[in-house]
Structure formats: structure tokens, C-alpha cells
């Protein structure tokens, strides 16, 4: 078997690494995580070379031991020893990029430096002597353009050639005499203890007093003391700390090399295009308005318009009844409109309405005409003498006589009186015939594609599948897959916009603009975007947190983002508002307000815990040069992240949906219960938990089941109440009203309000929870998040209900009221207590 050649791709963030990786590997990529950490790892087969694997390492600035990405990279390079390194360097920011290069060279692995964006360098009028640069660095240097793919093939073959060479050229020592002297000493004394190949790298790290290397090597106290003397001598001589000395001299040597190898275009001083863009985009006056417009545009396109169309199409079309091909279905829509108009016009009237028409009749000509017609037909002298019995005979024959006689009623019910008022008897008969033919069947029209459930139901019927099997396939499997796929269009759109914002360089500016606000409650400026996306759907919101590099910030954003009510939750809000607070303007906005308040208070309280304490991560961030992203890159990013969601979350969500179906469809004795949810396992689970919700005002098993099943899709909260009431005919609004009257006759409205806040601020739907687990990268953090969210939702609901009851009952103090006040006191304590001031907890790496 041929040994696989591993080539590691290393470079700064924003240097075109991903683009180069895609050029080199084409579509043969596989994504995984680095063992034990959430940093993503991508491997890909080199195009046309079966046994060469390119490994895309995280974008980093240095090999310091302080960030997860850097540690992952250096551990990989030192322990796994790739056969060669490709170090990609952004030619337009060459000075800072070469800093990493000087560190990589010390690893003594075969290496090639690829200078990217050479076209831009040339355009700026700068001249780069690559041959000289390679000579000074001690490794080959090649120009490439990742964007156009130029130079990739040459780079690949050169790297493979380097990897196959057994001898690595001696690399120049870049530090000054005394430092090199100390390093030589260190090398000598650790020679036996480390891999010979990486000797110099280890020596430099020990000189820098790199905590992690010192800990891993476990050198004897005596030896460390001896080496420390050399290091301190250097520090004294150069009046700086050891790590400062090393960094200084690295940059000094780069400056020296570049002074020789680069010929700067002196005439071209002044502002670049990127500078000019930034003069507007991050200016004091325009920054916030532009930011608002960008966010609005992203939200508008991905959440409200295009995203909703696509989601509706998936939910109601592909996973609903069916849909029409683009451009088809106009005839169907027209026929449906005509049919429903006929329905309104021909809606039969009853005797009571006849009597009403009689009362109006002299003044209302239509009513008069109708009563006269009826009287004439039944051979009565005057309409007033028509008996109820005779009228019912008349209806049996002539129930086409309908609302057409009541234009005022038509107007109020259907708001389209035009064309109705003057409907003649003949036209009415025609409408009646239309109704007799039944509602238009979309399947008879060309271009109709039946939805997956419709086709499946037919197949199941044909195959004579049992009721339980049918239910499982329809509700469990197709319902589950449909739920997952319904999220895909929105997620892809959000990812597309995020990729655009990231690629063009605006995302860093977002952090720059918003940092001041968000760091007060322990979040990063970039947390704003997940929160905005969260108003649409929590799942892409959680995934959008990936753009936050800092682990603590990312964690906290994931934990808090779903407190913003999402689109599905707004359906619950709408229903409760309609049922209990019709026409009130304050319910929905106050839910957003509570959501924002929770994020702020929870952020402040979390920041005072030991785990999140300490300075917010160093906000030392590069503001990359703006550039127009390529469509290929954007689509690749979108697909890359979207695929992740489908594969990883999809499988788990699918299983969760199947489980819910199972609990809902079977009793404990595994009898299929069908629609009789009362007998299901879910109902008894609800019974078990009902008492928990008593302090919230709805301690009934139905309320508990509604809360539990809403965990699978928030918009189901009120729908479940409808199912449980077995009230197929009544509208959901009436059902909800009756249900809460039953739960809590004293304060049905308050109970409904607390039911709503429970659904809104308790853990998000299971899909979002699973996504959060995946993105947090650890079960411990996942459970902590769910627990925290459950507590918050419960406390908010308790406070809302108990305080509401307290005020409505005229200040009657009960046990619940006291608990509510205690909870408020606890919240205030958590927010205002002095924060943890000890040593901030380091990220465990």
C-alpha cells in the first residue's frame, strides 16, 4: 500500500486559504472536528492524486498557546508531523503574514510559501523579488492567485517534490547573537527529550516560557533554573520580556528581508479603495444607518420574503398537498376564486335569516325581492304569512337562494360586494351548478405536482398498510423529515448572507461598530447578527454564532440567542392575543422587549459567574481589506454549512420527531390510540408534570402536554390544545378560551399569558436545542443551556402570573406572590452582585 502524503495548509485568517483549498481539492472533501475540540477540520484529496491529502488547518496569526485554534494547529504540526506544509501568505499584507512563516519554519518540516493575491500586489505597483525572498527565508516561494486558480498546480507539484526530499535545507537563524546563544544552550540541554526534527521550535518556545510546552515537557526544576539564567541574561541585556524579544526580532528580521526583496511603489501613497469604503461604512455619521440597512436587508430577504416563500413551499407544497410548476396554476387559482365566491353567494339561509329579511324588506329591495319570491313559490299571499315549516320545504328545493339577497351581509362577510348585488336568478343557478361539481381539484390541472404526503398516502392505501403503519409513515417519518427540511431554505439563505458579509469583510466592521454595546453584557459585537436572525428562526441563529471566534462569546450567544421570540413563537403569541387580548397592541412588542431584557440580564448575570468571568476576550481584531466575494466561494460556504445542518442535526431531529410521534400515538400497553391523545403515553407524562405548572396558573395535564409537545415545534402549543379538546368544529380561538377558563376560572387571561411566556422563554424547540448541543460541542454545556432556559422560562411565567394575580386580586398576598418577589430579588442579586474577581478560568484546551 502506498503511504498517504499529508500536506497541511496553514495561513492567517482572510488570506485566501479556503479558496486555495478548494482549488487544490475540488469536491473531494470530508469535514470533521479536531478530536475533543469544536474547531473544525477539513481534509481533501489533492485533485488527480489519490494518495495526497490536503489538510485545511484553522486560520491563525501565530503559534501562541492562548487560542484554541493556535493550539490545535501547533499540536497537529508537532505531533502528527505532516509530510509538508503549504504556508499561504497574503501578498498585500506580507509583513504580518510572514510572522507566522518565521514560526512555521522553525518546525523544520518541508515547506513551501505560496504568496497569494500577487495580481493585487502587482496592480499596486509593488515589485516582489520572490527568488530573493525564498533565499532569505530558506524555503521555496511561489506566486499564486487563489481567486483565479493561477499557480495552484505548480504549487502542488512543488510541495510534493519538497515532501519527497529527505534533507531539508538549513534555515537561517533570525535572532540576534545573545538570543541565538541562549537558544543554542536550550537546544543542547533538551536534545534528548524532544523530537530532534523540532528541536529548534521547542528551544524557542522554552525561551519564550511557553506555558504549554513547559508543562508538556515536564523538565526538571534544576534544568529550568539553569535555562532561566540564560533567558534572564538576554532579558536584562535587551530590556524586554522574553516573548517580547522573540516577537520583536521576528518582525525585525522580516522588515530586513522585505527591505531587500520588495520594491514599493513610492508614488502610490494615499487612500486605497478599501480605505475609501471604510471612510463611509464605519464613519460616525453613516455607520449605524448603513448597519441598520444591511441588517434589515438580510432579515427582509432571508427571513420575511424569500425565506418564507421557500419555507412555505417546502412545508405546504413538497411536504403538503402539492404545488404547481413555476408559471402554472393560474387557471386553478382563478377557478378556486370563482368557487369560493359561489360558496358565499349560494350559502343557504335559514328561517331566522328569512325573518330578518322580512323586517328589512320594504327598505331593502333585495330582501323584499327574496321574500316575495319565496311567498310566490309557496303560494302564500304575503311573505309575512310564510310559516317555518313551509320555508324548510322551500329550502329543500331551492337552497340556492342565498346571500345574494343580502348584499350588506355579503359585504361584511366577504368584503367583495361587486358582482354580487346584481346577480340574477339564472346566474345564481349557474353558481349552484358550479358548487355541485365540487371544489376544483388541482390534480386535474396541468403542472400540478402532488406533495410527498399525498403520494405516500396513496401508496400506503394501495398497499393496504395498517393504521399504525400509516400513522408512523405519515406523521413520524414524513412529518419528521418535513420539519427538518422546512428549515433548510431559511438556513441556506442566512448562511449565504453571512458568507457574503464575512467574505467581503463587513462582518469585522459589525463587531467594530457594535462592540461597545454588547461587551457590557459579556457578548461580542458579532452577537448582534445571531439575535437578529433569531427573530426569524433560532436554528440559523445558533449556527450564525459560528462567526464569533471567541469561545466564551460564542457560547453565551448560543445560550441567549433563542430568547428572542422566533417566527413560530409569534404564532402562539398571535393566537393567545386573539383569544384573550383582541386588538391589543402591547402583547407582541412586549414579548420582544422581555426577550431583549432576558438577554441583557442573563448576560450580565452569567458574566459574573466564574466560568464567564474575566475580561472579555482580547478584542484585537484585524479589519480586513474589503473585496468582492466570488459567487463560487459564497455558494461553497453556504453549501458547506447547510450540508452540516442537514447531516448532523437532521438525523437527530428526525429521531426526536419519531419519538414524539411514538409517545403521542401509543398507550403504555402499546395500543395504537390514533387521535385519542388522552390515552397516549404523552398524556400520562403530561399528568406527571401537571403540578409543576400549577404556580403558573395552568396546572392541568392538557397544559403540560401542550408545553411538552410545543418543544417539538413551538407553533403547536395552541394547536395541541385544539387536538386535546377534540373540538374539531370550533375555532382554535374558542377552544383556547374555553380551555383556559377550565384551567383557571379566576384568571384565564393571566394563565394564558403565563402559558405564552412559558412557551416563548423556556428552552426553544428541540431542533434548536439539538443544534445548540452540536454548536456548543459538549453535552455538559448543552444541558446547562437547557436547564438555564427552563429556569428562565419558568420564573418569568411565575412572576407574570403571580404578580398579575396579586394586582387583580387587590393585593392579596399568597405563597405564590412571595415566591415571585423572592425570584425577582434573586434576579436583582444576580445582576447587581459584585462579579467573580479571581483569576479568570482559562479555556480548557
Amino acid at each position: 500500500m502506498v503511504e498517504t502524503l499529508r500536506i497541511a495548509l496553514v495561513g492567517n485568517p482572510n488570506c485566501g486559504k479556503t479558496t486555495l483549498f478548494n482549488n487544490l481539492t475540488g469536491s473531494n472533501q470530508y469535514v470533521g472536528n479536531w478530536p475533543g475540540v469544536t474547531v473544525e477540520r477539513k481534509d481533501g484529496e489533492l485533485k488527480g492524486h489519490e494518495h495526497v491529502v490536503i489538510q485545511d488547518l484553522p486560520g491563525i496569526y501565530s503559534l501562541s498557546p492562548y487560542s484554541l485554534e493556535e493550539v490545535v494547529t501547533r499540536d497537529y504540526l508537532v505531533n502528527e508531523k505532516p509530510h509538508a506544509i503549504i504556508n499561504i501568505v497574503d501578498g498585500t499584507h506580507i509583513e504580518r503574514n510572514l510572522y507566522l512563516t518565521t514560526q512555521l519554519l522553525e518546525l523544520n518540516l518541508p515547506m513551501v510559501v505560496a504568496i497569494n493575491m500577487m495580481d493585487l500586489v502587482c496592480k499596486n505597483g509593488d515589485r516582489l523579488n520572490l527568488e530573493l525572498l525564498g533565499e532569505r527565508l530558506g524555503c521555496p516561494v511561489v506566486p499564486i492567485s487563489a481567486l483565479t486558480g493561477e499557480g495552484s498546480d505548480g504549487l502542488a507539484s512543488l510541495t510534493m517534490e519538497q515532501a519527497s526530499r529527505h534533507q531539508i535545507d538549513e534555515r537561517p537563524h533570525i535572532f540576534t547573537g545573545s538570543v541565538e546563544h541562549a537558544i543554542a544552550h536550550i537546544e543542547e540541554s533538551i536534545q534528548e527529550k524532544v523530537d530532534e526534527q523540532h528541536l529548534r521550535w521547542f528551544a524557542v518556545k522554552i525561551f519564550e516560557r511557553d506555558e504549554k510546552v513547559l508543562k508538556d515537557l515536564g523538565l526538571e526544576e534544576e534544568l529550568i533554573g539553569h535555562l532561566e539564567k540564560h533567558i534572564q541574561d538576554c532579558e536584562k541585556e535587551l530590556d524586554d520580556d522574553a516573548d517580547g524579544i522573540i516577537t520583536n526580532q521576528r518582525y525585525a528580521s522580516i522588515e530586513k528581508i522585505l527591505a531587500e526583496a520588495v520594491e514599493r511603489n513610492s508614488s502610490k501613497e494615499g487612500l486605497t479603495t478599501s480605505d475609501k469604503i471604510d471612510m463611509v461604512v464605519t464613519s460616525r455619521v453613516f455607520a449605524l444607518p448603513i448597519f441598520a440597512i444591511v441588517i434589515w436587508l438580510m432579515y427582509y430577504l432571508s427571513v420575511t420574503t424569500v425565506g418564507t416563500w421557500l419555507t412555505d413551499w417546502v412545508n405546504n407544497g413538497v411536504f403538503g398537498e402539492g404545488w404547481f410548476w413555476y408559471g402554472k396554476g393560474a387557471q386553478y387559482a382563478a377557478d378556486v376564486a370563482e368557487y369560493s365566491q359561489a360558496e358565499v353567494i349560494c350559502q343557504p339561509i335559514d328561517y331566522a335569516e328569512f325573518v330578518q329579511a322580512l323586517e328589512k324588506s320594504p327598505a331593502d329591495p333585495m330582501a323584499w325581492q327574496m321574500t316575495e319570491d319565496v311567498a310566490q313559490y309557496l303560494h302564500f299571499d304575503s311573505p309575512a304569512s310564510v310559516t317555518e315549516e313551509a320555508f324548510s320545504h322551500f329550502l329543500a328545493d331551492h337552497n340556492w337562494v342565498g346571500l345574494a339577497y343580502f348584499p350588506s351581509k355579503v359585504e361584511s362577510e366577504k368584503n367583495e360586494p361587486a358582482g354580487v348585488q346584481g346577480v340574477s336568478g339564472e346566474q345564481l343557478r349557474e353558481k349552484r351548478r358550479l358548487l355541485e361539481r365540487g371544489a376544483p381539484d388541482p390534480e386535474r390541472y396541468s403542472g400540478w405536482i402532488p406533495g410527498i404526503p399525498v403520494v405516500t398516502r396513496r401508496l400506503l392505501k394501495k398497499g393496504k398498510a395498517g393504521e399504525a403503519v400509516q400513522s408512523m409513515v405519515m406523521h413520524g417519518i414524513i412529518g419528521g423529515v418535513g420539519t427538518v427540511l422546512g428549515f433548510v431554505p431559511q438556513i441556506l439563505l442566512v448562511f449565504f448572507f453571512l458568507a457574503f458579509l464575512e467574505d467581503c469583510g463587513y462582518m469585522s466592521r459589525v463587531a467594530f461598530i457594535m462592540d461597545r454595546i454588547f461587551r457590557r453584557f459579556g457578548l461580542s459585537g458579532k452577537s448582534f447578527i445571531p439575535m437578529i436572525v433569531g427573530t426569524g428562526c433560532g436554528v440559523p441563529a445558533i449556527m450564525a454564532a459560528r462567526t464569533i471566534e471567541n469561545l466564551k462569546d460564542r457560547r453565551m450567544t448560543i445560550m441567549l440567542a433563542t430568547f428572542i421570540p422566533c417566527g413560530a413563537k409569534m404564532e402562539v403569541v398571535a393566537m393567545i392575543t386573539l383569544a384573550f387580548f383582541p386588538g391589543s397592541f402591547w402583547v407582541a412588542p412586549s414579548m420582544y422587549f422581555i426577550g431583549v431584557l432576558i438577554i441583557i440580564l442573563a448576560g450580565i448575570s452569567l458574566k459574573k459567574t466564574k466560568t464567564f468571568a474575566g475580561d472579555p476576550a482580547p478584542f484585537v481584531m484585524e479589519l480586513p481589506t474589503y473585496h468582492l466575494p466570488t459567487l463560487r466561494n459564497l455558494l461553497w460556504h453556504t453549501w458547506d454549512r447547510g450540508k452540516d445542518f442537514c447531516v448532523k442535526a437532521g438525523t437527530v431531529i428526525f429521531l426526536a420527531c419519531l419519538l414524539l410521534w411514538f409517545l403521542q400515538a401509543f398507550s403504555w400497553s402499546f395500543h395504537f390510540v390514533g387521535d385519542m391523545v388522552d390515552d397516549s403515553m404523552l398524556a400520562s407524562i403530561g399528568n406527571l408534570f401537571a403540578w409543576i405548572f400549577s404556580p403558573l396558573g395552568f396546572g392541568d395535564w392538557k397544559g403540560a402536554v401542550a408545553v411538552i409537545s410545543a418543544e417539538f415545534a413551538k407553533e403547536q402549543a395552541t394547536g395541541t390544545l385544539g387536538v386535546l379538546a377534540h373540538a374539531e368544529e370550533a375555532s382554535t380561538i374558542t377552544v383556547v378560551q374555553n380551555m383556559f377558563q377550565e384551567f383557571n376560572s379566576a384568571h384565564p387571561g393571566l394563565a394564558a399569558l403565563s402559558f405564552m411566556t412559558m412557551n416563548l422563554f423556556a428552552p426553544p424547540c428541540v431542533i434548536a436545542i439539538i443544534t445548540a448541543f452540536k454548536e456548543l460541542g459538549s453535552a455538559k454545556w448543552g444541558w446547562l443551556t437547557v436547564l438555564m432556559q427552563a429556569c428562565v422560562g419558568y420564573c418569568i411565567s411565575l412572576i407574570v402570573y403571580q404578580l398579575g394575580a396579586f394586582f387583580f386580586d387587590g393585593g392579596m398576598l399568597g405563597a405564590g406572590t412571595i415566591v415571585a418577589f423572592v425570584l425577582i430579588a434573586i434576579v436583582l442579586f444576580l445582576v447587581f452582585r459584585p462579579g467573580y474577581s479571581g483569576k479568570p478560568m482559562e479555556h480548557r484546551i
Partner: protein
Amino acid sequence: MKTLKDVSIGESALVRKLNSVGPNRRRLLDMGLTKGVKVTVRKLAPLGDPIEITLRGYELSLRKSDAELIEVE
């Protein structure tokens, strides 16, 4: 003692010393804020913090609290 925070917008200064500690210090060093390097303060974020500086041919943003720990001349 003048720090980077005191440098007005549009002005340049040379870095003298880094007083920050731990990961912050290392990060600043890694990003090229070494002794003697010339930095130009470009602008203030719309809400007054952080600041944007140019050094070694690229743009970097950092908080005022970090800038305060960088001695310049």
C-alpha cells in the same frame, strides 16, 4: 506617560512598551505591536470605542482599555 489612547485621530506614534499582560499582551505582540513600530490612529468607532489603527500595512481594531496599556512616543 503617553499611551496609544492619547494619540489623536490621524496622528502617528511609535510604540515604546506594552503594559498589558497574559493573552492580551501576546495577542498584541503577535499582531505586530512590537517596540518601535509606527502606528497611525485612523478612527473611533461610531459609539466611541473601539479604535482603529494602521500598522505594518494593515488595519487593526482594539479597545481603548487595551490602547491605554500601550506606551507610545
